[in-house]
């Protein structure tokens, strides 16, 4: 099953919309709550990232009985040094964004921690693409 959500850069009000929708879907599919929680947390962080850094972005969600794959594709400044961006605490968020309670530098590491598979590609001046995979069945990831 496919779903698509648009995210507007700078729109923190609506960041969280996609994670709320995906949560609703996964609940209806009777996915284990601990799995849903990880997905929702990762997706919410991703949405906030787009709102904080990019001009706009699209979230593609693909669900089957085994796993969910979420692709967050944004048009934005891109990340010059991905390794640095993946370090907990590293942040390029503007003071305004930090004042809003975001930009603590935990976004990307947190997304990775909550994923079973995580890919990030980025091109400076063009944008960033995250791919998050989470297994939907609890026993598969050995929890």
């Amino acid at each position, binding site marked *: *099953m496919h779903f698509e959500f648009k995210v507007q850069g700078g729109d923190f009000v609506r960041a*969280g919309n996609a*994670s*709320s929708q995906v*949560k*609703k*879907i996964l*609940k*209806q*599919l*009777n*996915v284990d*709550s601990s799995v*849903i*929680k990880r997905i*929702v*947390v990762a997706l*919410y962080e991703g949405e906030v990232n787009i709102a904080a850094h990019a001009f706009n972005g699209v979230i593609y969600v693909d*669900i*089957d*009985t085994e796993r969910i794959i979420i692709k967050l594709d944004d048009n934005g400044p891109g990340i010059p040094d991905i390794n640095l961006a993946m370090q907990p605490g590293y942040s390029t968020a503007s003071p305004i964004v930090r004042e809003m309670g975001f930009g603590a530098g935990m976004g990307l590491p947190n997304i990775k921690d909550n994923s079973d598979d995580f890919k990030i590609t980025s091109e400076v001046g063009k944008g960033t693409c995250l791919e998050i995979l989470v297994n*939907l*069945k609890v026993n598969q990831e050995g929890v």
Partner: protein
Amino acid sequence: MENASFHHALKIRTDVCIGCAHCMRACPTEALRVSGGKAHLHSDRCIDCGECYRVCPTGAIIVEQDDFQNIFNFKHRVALIPSVLLGQYPDDVTPGMVFQALQNIGFTEIYEVEDSVEYLIPQINDYIGKNQNKKPIVSSFCPAIVRLVQVKFPWLVGNIMLLRPPLDLTSSYIRGKYKEQGFSELEVGIFYVTPCAAKIAAIKSPVGEDKSEITGVINMDLIYNRTLHEIKKKVVSKDQDTFNSQLTPRSITWALTNGEASHINGRCMAIDGIHNVMEFLDKIENDEVAGVDFLELRSCDESCAGGILAASNRFLTAELLRKRAKALAEFNHGEVNQSKLLQYQEFLVGRIDLSRVEPRSMVKLDEDMAKAMKKMERVNRIMCYLPGIDCGVCGAPSCLALAEDIVKGEGAISHCVFLQKVMEQSKLNPEHSFKIMKKIWGDNRCMKDCEKPNQNK
């Protein structure tokens, strides 16, 4: 794990119901449907919040209670009254007068539900301290909220505070007291005067407890009428005020909004109104709110002052009780009866905890994920055809609810009045579509009737 059916205090009188669908639109858990010209309650979804009761124009939704005469089966007839009862009467009716009136109508003793609040407050603070990993702790006070969490926010059941609410603690205390005096359990009837349906449901099928110690439940509107009658007859007076409220200032306001939250340590929030609560729980579930220790959540606007069986205006009740609490605080500085606290400790040893509260999700489309996914795909396909205006003419509260009903085998696409029009262009005969409407709304819905009960509402 998840029970199929629950006792509900709310019942629909099909002889009075006109199938107007007001209740269906008001229900926060989409537990109502109309068919055969009558409203039907989906038992697993209902949380006994009573929103349907508020909007029913014909009084077809009733709150099932015990027969008042049952109190006379007991030698000791205890009225267990909520603090909001004393806030129902005009300003000049003192609590003492209401107590006398309660005795006049047959009760031998009166206890107040919030009697246990002073005992409970330190327990809650202690509980929060010990359960840092379960934050925010959701109060177990409002039974409609506990049920809401079970059916709609199943992952948050672990956040529900596993301490028995004041109603249960006080009834255990009363039992303990009578036992101490040597009376058998059969001699003592405890009758709770309820401001809402959820409390009745909680007593008849408790969550996290085996059996309630309350003998029966009498609706607050009935008690209000009977006691006010006594007061109006002037057989009670201010002067013979021998009995009086035992509550402390904070127990008087406990059942009002912020009653709990303002006395619990840490960052506490109070939210009233079922829709407000749902909005907030959604955020909590997404982990969007951090650092809250305790949530006081109440189904009714203005909490128990806004209970569906309240007689007085909820704002006036809340104001009156706050005023009394303030006056009492100025008078005795919130003094607590220490010997009573000791008695509570003695009687409630091992009786303060609730056992685990189980989720009983109603949101899933199927237990089996593959089947649920198929169903969801079908729901999404059906949604492409439905008009998306949630008119409710199909007898379901929204297009999505109809689509889900269809997938569960509880509805048909031809129930949609818009799709009927489309189908009439090809295969559906207009006579048949008229029959479908009659099946949902009853035979007489399209007949001229100048006396329609809710015409002028």
